[in-house]
């Protein structure tokens, strides 16, 4: 097999992915009245990336052969897809949804920046504990739970920064601290994976080569387990961090564009700032 054959033959139309995606789209359409706007474009893009990340070769390779493919999928599902979904939700819809219990009170708790931060960073760390990850790739149900948890936790993580309801957002300076400390969390994990030495994730050491592409990957593409793990770690470290960085630039740009009254730190923010930076270690 050459690389194109691999990429064209490893699509895996998982029904749960397609059903979830359809439900997401139909639900959005019904609540917003099937109008195509800039927001809905973001939302649809988010759903599209969600589907692509889970049915494309990325998914197959990431589960069986390549840790790096898993990591790209992980970054897409935890950081990109939830962000796009969240950005695509109109303010009015979000306000209506927050009135529905128990969703409203749940978001009040989960949307607390400290909890959201620990969930967001924790999702990265916990799911990448080597023993857990090795179990997950071998277990279908657990795998589905993991993917869904990425998206849900991603939404919670982005909520304090990009919530459609402005009053739920952190001020720009605190957002920057929130995001850069999260970036530190993902940097450290990426660093540990990159420099840990090959074989941290034993599942990828000697995969069952059911479609016979191992020689291609290991030989022609030079993706030995060591290189593969390095690419994975660095993908989390560098592009992963850049996403947080771009996001904090967006919050600052948004603040520049906002009317004069909104200040970088609200008057009551000083105390909260201190506690936030205290907890975010």
């Amino acid at each position, binding site marked *: 097999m050459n690389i194109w054959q691999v990429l064209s033959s490893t699509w895996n139309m998982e029904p749960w992915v397609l059903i979830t995606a359809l439900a997401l789209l139909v639900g959005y359409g019904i609540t917003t009245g099937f109008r195509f706007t800039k927001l809905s474009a973001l939302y649809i893009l988010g759903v599209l990336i969600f589907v692509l990340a889970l049915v494309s070769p990325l998914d197959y390779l990431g589960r069986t052969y390549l840790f790096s493919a898993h990591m790209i999928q992980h970054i897409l599902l935890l950081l990109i897809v939830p962000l796009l979904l969240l950005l695509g939700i109109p303010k009015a819809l979000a306000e209506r949804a927050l009135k529905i219990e128990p969703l409203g009170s749940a978001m009040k708790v989960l949307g607390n920046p400290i909890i959201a931060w620990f969930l967001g960073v924790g999702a990265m760390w916990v799911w990448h504990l080597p023993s857990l990850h090795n179990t997950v790739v071998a277990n279908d149900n657990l795998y589905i739970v993991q993917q869904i948890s990425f998206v849900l936790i991603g939404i919670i993580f982005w909520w304090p920064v990009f919530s459609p309801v402005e009053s739920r957002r952190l001020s720009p*300076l605190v957002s*920057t601290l929130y995001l*850069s400390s999260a*970036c530190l969390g993902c*940097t450290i994990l990426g660093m540990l994976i*990159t420099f840990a030495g090959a074989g941290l994730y034993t599942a990828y050491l000697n995969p069952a080569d059911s479609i016979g592409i191992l020689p291609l990957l290991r030989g022609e593409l030079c993706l030995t387990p*060591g*290189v593969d793990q*390095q*690419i994975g770690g*660095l993908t989390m*470290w*560098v592009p992963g*961090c*850049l996403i947080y*960085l771009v996001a*904090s*630039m967006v919050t*600052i*740009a948004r603040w*520049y564009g906002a009317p*004069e009254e909104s*200040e*970088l*730190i609200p008057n009551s923010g*000083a105390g909260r700032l201190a506690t936030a930076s205290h907890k975010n270690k």
Partner: protein
Amino acid sequence: MSSRIPIVPENIKPLPLLKENEGMLSWVASVDHKQIGIMYLLASMVFFVIGGIEALVIRIQLAQPEFGFISPEVYNQMFTMHGTTMIFFVVMPFLIGVGVYLVPLMIGARDMAFPRLNALSFWLVIFGGILLYYSFFTQSGASEVGWFAYAPLSEKPFSLNKGPTYWVLGLLAVGISSVASGLNNIVTILTMRIKGMTIRRLPLFVWMILVTSFLLVFVIPVIASAFSMMLLDRLLGATFFTPAHGGSAILWQHFFWGFGHPEVYILILPAFGIISEVIPVFSRKPIFGYEFVAGSTVAIGLLSVGVWAHHMFAVGLGNVANLYFSLASMLIAIPTGVKVLNWVATMWGGKIYFATPMLFAVAFIIEFVMGGLTGVAIASAPIDWVVTDSYFIVAHFHYVLYGGSLFAIFAGVYYWFPKFTGRMMSETLGKWHFWLTIVGFNMTFFIQHFLGVMGMPRRTYTYQDFPYWGSMNLVSTIGALILALSILVFIWNIFVSLRSGKEAGNNPWHAWTLEWATSSPPAVHNFDLVPPVRGRRPLWDLEHPDTPDEPNAKVV
């Protein structure tokens, strides 16, 4: 002028006794931010002369092949101390000192948020400097292991002298001082601004100090912990960085550069701030793209902490890591380029007045872009492999640190000297200083690019008589002597201007930020009256009530 209203908020705690701010005692006991700022500047000036003499010794030793001006041991001490002094005891104290002097004035405050902490920061720098230089008097002299003190060379079996221990202790003191002043700056800028001075109206210099302070607070602990480990290695026989006992020398490199790369931005961001103040004033135009200058600083600050591994391409991190870090490092060129474009656009169509501060600011842009371009080149791993640890790197970082930070420092001194002292600096001597600097600087360092590409390694004690090496090094050495002459002119200028400079008045440059609204030098309490802040250029608004910057701004 009738709109001047007294609105400086009183500090909640009363300011320290005024009598501490008078007479000889003030040089020891003062907690006034202006006095401490001046003391920072004087200290950095003294260290600058010391570091400069070390540089001259290095250059003289390299003036011709196989020269024996000093012994190899002394040579190693010279380049180690030169680098350490210039980074930690010249550029950092200077920029922090200017910040300490100007930040409260620019935001309309009476003092820093924590005046005593401010004094502590200053005296820790002096303490650190004494510790560092005391090592010359120990048995086998100062540290000889280079400013980045790579393990295991800096470790026990290889460096048995006490030099590196003093070196670590001195830098730990400076590190603690930097964190303290970073904390002080952050709290001052966030909480002590006068009414109307929103963060979006902060002078860009204050913005840069704010971002730099965040870098100090979050990056210095990285090196502080690495220094602690090195100290434990050297004193208690711990084995962090000694491979022979299970430690890891690469770990030191990671820790050091994890600090070292953001440090580069700590050294250059306040310089950007000085340039962003000088260029608009001497172009008679508001800064072009204020938001972009401020926002790109945040981007630089955040990016800078994630790219240190590009200092370690030659270590063998693997091709994948090299690739990622090459790309990430090149990204920093984007926000930096944004700034350069903004400065040029500010000058574009302005009525440029080439006083000495402006000359240095314009030269800064040119020299810094040179250093930036070679920086982008060596961010690419294959190029770095060829030129790493050669004189190409020496040329690159001197273009960034001398052509960048120091040129901005000179611009800043000429620009704010009237405010600091009440007297103008001599323009004639200033122009002599400028042109001697330009000639000397480029003569010294430009040719080192070629020496580096031809293979001359950095930190080499001497070299064989290869074709052209001798003559090129001689050119560089002559350049260094011209540079030394320029510094003498500079010091003479300060001396002369202090005694007999022209009276400056409150606002000799017709600048727009708040520090120019008070007397020169400012009184201990800074302001009697502060003009209302309704835009980014309060003094412009005051003088041109009909055409304010922000016509719709509310009166506070």
